[in-house]
């Protein structure tokens, strides 16, 4: 084989004065970066293999390790950045489509950070959530245009609703793309906090059969693990049309990740590729989508809300309108920063639009068309913290999905190598030696803690605005002001500039 032109990405620094040769790093690195050299009687590290996942750094009992960007620089070039050059080397060497994990990491503007939240001063006093009731319970599902009340009781029959104690759900991540222990962690956390996790297109493992009350089951183009019991198990069904990390293309779980458990859950033979085609082959139109929505409603006797999840793309507002009219109860929109276990790099980084714009556009459009009440809006694909959530709700979202943030709660250090199956944190892997690194008791506690913390923060932000119910903030764009935004951007977001 000819010489590889690849250069190291990371530099591992070992402080010899701190290293006690305990070899925890050696044992913990699935990429085999560290090794004990018998001749020199010390640990040596192969920088080429390092993915900067921080597993060794975190577990090192004496904190003797540091990982840094490899300091090698290409000659300064305003156009050819180092990633551009490196990707050419890789492709020239392999002829392959560049595959990446997690979400778009390019320095596009983060619009969440260009919106500011209002607070009460003097007028309309703020509310202290520690003393006063603060309602952030959220119901997802179609709302009737009007309610009829008879003798003090609701007469109108409500379509099925999901009840959330926090306006945050764990977004769809399949068992296969993530480990069973990751699924267990999210399921338990969802139950503890009173929200939902989403199976993704990978079926529901038998160990999680009891978690149906906190589970959204997904139906995607590959229809893996989809059968009557599965549809019956979930509290809601999500038809996945697209996802933010890879709008317009399908998914592909490589055969090496299809071990016995994944095989059984997806109901496909061990070791075979699980290919989710780009489109559902029974959906080529809004009318076809309606057909699948109702086919699922028929199959579950109209008892469960049906979600339709799409990626945020250019004409998302029109598509969302069509979805609402097709009978979906909830529309989930995934922004261009949404994560994934594996996506072609170019798709991940250059397809789709920011969720902030998509959300504002969809909410506006549905209101204009007078059908906003017919669907709930759930957005995902970049939510990092509770203020992002508050801003999203003010822009019109009913709830948000978190994926990347949830995985970080479980230990993910965003090395973006999910597709290698060697996740050192036991999340994006099926290797039993790695999977057991994620203890679901610990994972569930961490994920639940995150949501609990955010719940408090949301209440505080609401209280600051003098609002005591999340419902009162929903679509209340007056609570937002833009900063560092163009006229057009402000117009799309439907918010005023700071100071206005």
């Amino acid at each position: 084989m000819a010489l590889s032109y690849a250069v190291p990405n990371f530099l591992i620094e070992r402080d010899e004065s701190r290293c006690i040769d305990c070899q925890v790093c050696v044992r913990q690195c699935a990429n085999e970066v560290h090794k004990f050299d018998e001749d020199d009687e010390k640990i040596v590290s192969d920088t080429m293999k390092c993915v900067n996942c921080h597993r060794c750094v975190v577990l090192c009992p004496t904190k003797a390790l540091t990982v840094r960007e490899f300091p090698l620089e290409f000659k300064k070039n305003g156009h050819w950045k180092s990633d551009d050059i490196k990707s050419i080397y890789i492709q020239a060497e392999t002829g392959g489509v560049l595959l990446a994990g997690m979400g778009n990491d390019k320095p596009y503007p983060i619009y969440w950070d260009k919106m500011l939240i209002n607070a009460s001063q003097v007028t309309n006093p703020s509310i202290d959530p520690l003393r006063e009731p603060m309602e952030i319970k959220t119901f997802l599902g179609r709302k009737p245009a009007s309610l009829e009340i008879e003798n003090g009781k609701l007469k109108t029959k409500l379509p099925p609703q999901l009840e959330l104690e926090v306006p945050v759900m764990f977004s769809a991540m399949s068992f296969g793309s993530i480990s069973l222990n990751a699924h267990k962690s999210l399921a338990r956390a969802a139950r503890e906090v009173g929200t939902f996790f989403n199976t993704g297109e990978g079926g529901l493992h038998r160990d999680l059969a009891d978690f149906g009350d906190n589970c959204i089951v997904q139906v995607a183009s590959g229809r893996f693990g989809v059968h009557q019991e599965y549809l019956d198990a979930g509290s809601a069904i999500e038809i996945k049309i697209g996802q933010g990390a890879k709008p317009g293309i399908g998914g592909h779980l490589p055969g090496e990740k299809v071990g016995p458990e994944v095989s059984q859950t997806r109901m496909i033979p061990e070791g075979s590729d699980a290919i989710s085609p780009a489109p559902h082959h029974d959906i080529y139109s809004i009318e076809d989508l309606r057909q699948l929505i109702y086919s699922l409603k028929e199959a579950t006797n109209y008892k469960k809300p049906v979600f339709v999840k799409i990626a945020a793309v250019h004409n998302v507002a029109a598509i969302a309108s069509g979805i609402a009219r097709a009978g979906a109860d909830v529309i989930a929109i995934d922004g261009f920063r949404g994560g994934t276990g594996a996506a072609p790099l170019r798709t991940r980084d250059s397809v789709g639009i920011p969720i902030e714009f998509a959300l504002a556009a969809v909410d506006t459009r549905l209101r204009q068309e007078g059908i906003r009440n017919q669907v709930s809006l759930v957005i995902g694909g970049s939510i990092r913290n509770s203020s992002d959530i508050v801003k999203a709700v003010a822009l019109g979202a009913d709830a948000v999905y978190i994926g990347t943030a949830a995985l970080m709660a479980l230990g993910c250090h965003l090395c973006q190598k999910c597709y290698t199956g060697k996740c050192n944190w036991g999340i994006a892997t099926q290797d039993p030696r790695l999977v057991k690194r994620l203890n679901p008791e610990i994972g569930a506690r961490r994920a639940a803690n995150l949501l609990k913390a955010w719940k408090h923060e949301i209440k505080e932000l609401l209280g600051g605005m003098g609002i005591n119910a999340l419902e009162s903030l929903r679509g209340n764009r007056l609570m937002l002001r833009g900063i560092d935004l163009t006229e057009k951007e402000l117009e799309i977001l439907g918010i005023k500039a700071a100071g206005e």
Partner: protein
Amino acid sequence: MVTIDAKGVYYKELNEKVKEAISSGAEHIELINVNGQRYIGDGISASAKITIHGIPGNDMAAFMNGPTIEVFGNGQDAVGNTMNSGTIVIHGNAGDVTGYAMRGGEIFIKGNVGYRVGIHMKAYQDKVPVMVIGGKAGDFFAEYMAGGKIILLGLGCEGESVVGRYCATGLHGGTLYIRNNFEERYFGKEVQRDELTMEDKEFLKSYLTRFSDYFGYDKQEILGLDFIKFVPVGSRPYGNMYAKW
């Protein structure tokens, strides 16, 4: 037997009636004057038989788990969509995406089928879906197929190709048995021909016998037909397409 007259009945109401009949123990339900009502048999887990006179609408027997449905008429699009088990017999043609993503059960169609039929069929352990098509298939036949077996007889199609373009592209599991005329160039590069084994012959004999019985063909004549067997080149069609970023 319970007979339900579907004339002028909205699909939702019709399907409710069918489900009610099944939950009250009916073993055989006859639907008459069916005219385009959708979702018949969807998601039903039972062993009942449903006989349909007329033309059922789209997504018949989607997610179905057990029943037998016999249609005296044509089927529409997405018959047996993602079905798990049961038997469907159609005394006519069937539309697009018939048997999409089906994982178990059987579909017998007397006539032709539309586009994208058998797409993404899959098998798991003892669940091996089977589709027997009397006539010809449209484009994208057996695309992305991951498991199961399809027999395509092409009866009455002499002189024209029994499959359309992009046949079996992306196929990575399952077996196709296709008779005589087809355009070789229509096939994706992911399939290859294979020899018929004794097991294949037994399988063909069993299903062709039932096909003949369902649709009144001369059994000896049908059993005498020759088939060409297609199997996947590999179970990982796109395994080497990617480079690690």
